[in-house]
């Protein structure tokens, strides 16, 4: 589904990603862990097409397409979804209106008929159960005045509505209490199918108690230094990133 080859990217002239290689197949969940500043969020941003990041080398093949050739909206319409670490507020635009605009934009892109307000509301109400969200949040402006937990749940609600092929969760666990974490994780698990895939970017192992990854990658200083199964995350938890930081070069055969 996704193949990242030797990806280099920089922000304002500073190189952050220094040769990322990663292959994600349908049905897989990949966790990307790493210390602060290692390039986790940059990788998520590059995949979604954030213009702040400049790709200097490498390629990203997604569903047979060169992902880097698509503008951000087209990537979204092709099924790439980014759950933001800091969801953005849009004052004066109701959450429902925003969701409907997004949903119909994607349908239009795929040549499908747009859904009317009544049918759409039914769909949203169904999906809201998944994240146990207060229905009053639908009429409020997008993320405005939402608590940290509400914002993250709103991200998962959008994901549920848009039903992406590849979901990238950027530190979705940050700032969540344990109950909210459980609800968010439950949402992600419920949406997981053999046809889609997820990349879970996280700093802490704790999220992986709830979302069990097929592969764990350790990102240090812009490179994946080690990949393994979920036990790798536990080892990181015990030994800390200092241990991973010492792994200067990728261990052969683990990527």
């Amino acid at each position: 589904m996704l193949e990242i080859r030797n990806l280099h990217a920089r922000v304002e002239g500073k190189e952050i990603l220094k040769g990322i290689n990663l292959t994600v197949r349908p049905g897989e969940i990949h966790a990307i862990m790493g210390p602060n500043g290692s390039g986790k969020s940059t990788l998520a941003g590059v995949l979604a097409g954030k213009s702040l990041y400049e790709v200097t080398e490498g390629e990203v093949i997604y569903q047979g397409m060169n992902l880097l050739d698509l503008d951000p909206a087209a990537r979204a319409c092709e099924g790439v979804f980014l759950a933001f670490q800091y969801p953005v507020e849009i004052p004066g635009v109701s959450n429902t209106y925003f969701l409907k605009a997004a949903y119909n934009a994607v349908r239009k892109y795929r040549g499908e008929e747009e859904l009317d307000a009544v049918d759409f509301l039914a769909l949203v109400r169904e999906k809201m159960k998944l994240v146990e969200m207060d229905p009053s949040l639908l009429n409020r402006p997008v993320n405005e005045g939402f608590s940290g937990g509400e914002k993250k749940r709103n991200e998962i609600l959008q994901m549920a509505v848009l039903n992406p092929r590849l979901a990238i969760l950027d530190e979705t666990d940050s700032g969540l209490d344990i109950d909210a974490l459980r609800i968010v994780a439950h949402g992600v698990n419920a949406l997981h199918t053999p046809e889609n895939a997820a990349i879970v970017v996280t700093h802490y192992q704790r999220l992986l108690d709830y979302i069990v990854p097929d592969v764990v990658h350790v990102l240090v200083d812009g490179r994946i230094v080690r990949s393994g199964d979920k036990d790798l995350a536990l080892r990181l938890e015990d030994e800390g990133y200092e241990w991973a930081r010492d792994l200067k070069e990728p261990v052969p055969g683990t990527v």
Partner: protein
Amino acid sequence: MSSDTQELQDLTGGEYKYGFVTDIEADTVPKGLSEDVIRLISHKKNEPEWLLEWRLKAYRLWLGMTEPHWANVEYPPIDYQDIIYYSAPKMKDRPKSLDEVDPELLATYEKLGIPLKEQELLTGVAVDAVFDSVSVATTFKDKLKDLGIIFCSFSEAVQEYPDLVRKYLGAVVPQGDNFYAALNSAVFTDGSFVYVPKGVRCPMELSTYFRINSLGTGQFERTLIVADEGATVSYLEGCTAPVRDENQLHAAVVELLALDDATIKYSTVQNWYPGDKDGKGGIYNFVTKRGKCAGRNSKISWTQVETGSSITWKYPSCILVGDNAVGEFYSVAVTNNRQQADTGTKMIHIGKNTRSTIVSKGISAGFSQNTYRGQVKIMKNADGARNFSQCDSMLMGDRCGAHTFPYIENNNRTAQLEHEATTSKIGEDQIFYCNQRGIATEDAVNMIVNGFCKEVFRELPMEFAVEAQKLLGISLEGSVG
């Protein structure tokens, strides 16, 4: 980052869609301003002697005044002798019905989306159409007359209801009020006149549509709306002009008067030609608008959506004289390219328990400068007066400016005043967030800007709220790279 800025630039470069010129014969007076020109205008309009004297008094006051330069706008000196002060589409007699109106004129309004033929007007909006300096048609007049409501062109009011005009003309904006008001008082040619009698609630929206057509003319219209005791009226004005390389002056005066328990709602969708990308041409929109809440429990509400004009200078104001009077000002001002806007309001609290609300949304794009200037003044006897002001500015791109100048003067200890102000840059983050959900940049900008303006749009009458949203879309539309 740079590609987003480029996109914003493209987006905000929408074309002006009302720039055509109607080829119609016009009756004009020679260029320039003198007592003779004023006499000629007054004569052409068959005005009573008192009105001519009123004009001449204004002219003499004007001669002693200097053009104000305190606004945050820049423009080359205006040659007031190089302007044509009267231009009217040639008509043999005043048309008695729409059937007698020149088809060319009707076609012009249809092109602008304002069909004047009543049978096509299913929206229940009565329209007065002003072409250059003259009102060409007023719809639904007879129906309103049955209720005692007068809605006609100013010229007609002078002929038919001279006593009412004489009683109220200048009652809110006197001739010598300011430079442009004095100029307008001397040369005003037409406009709308509305009188709603005691206890009558006007059953439909009243609307005036202003169009400048002729080259080298100014438009100096004058609107006077009087709501007698317990009366209610909602009024809307719209305006467009052809694309011209030279600047044209528009100096209007609007006076509103609300007596006891009366309510006037005045909405403006201003879309004069804004000039081209480099700031060539466009309308100088120097307008004096003021409402007087003379009676107890009276209310005046201004809502404006300002997208056009190369320069806008206007401060729709409320003088809250009657106890418990309410003044409101809701404004969206969009500037793009080289446009300049210096706009806001004045709320003067005189009566007890008077209340005012100010909500201003400024959006600047391109190289434009957008200024909010507002005054809240609480007089000594205005016990319990309250004001709430909120001024939000949004910047698109990094070459435009947003400025806020609030002036607050409180002379009463029991008054409560609140002022909130924010300035934000249209978030590249917000646009990216929308993009990431599949929404294209153009739609995203539209959505974000409309969300920003929502508090103002919801004050507009329904049909016009839709029109205003579309207009905003047009002002901000363009090709996305």
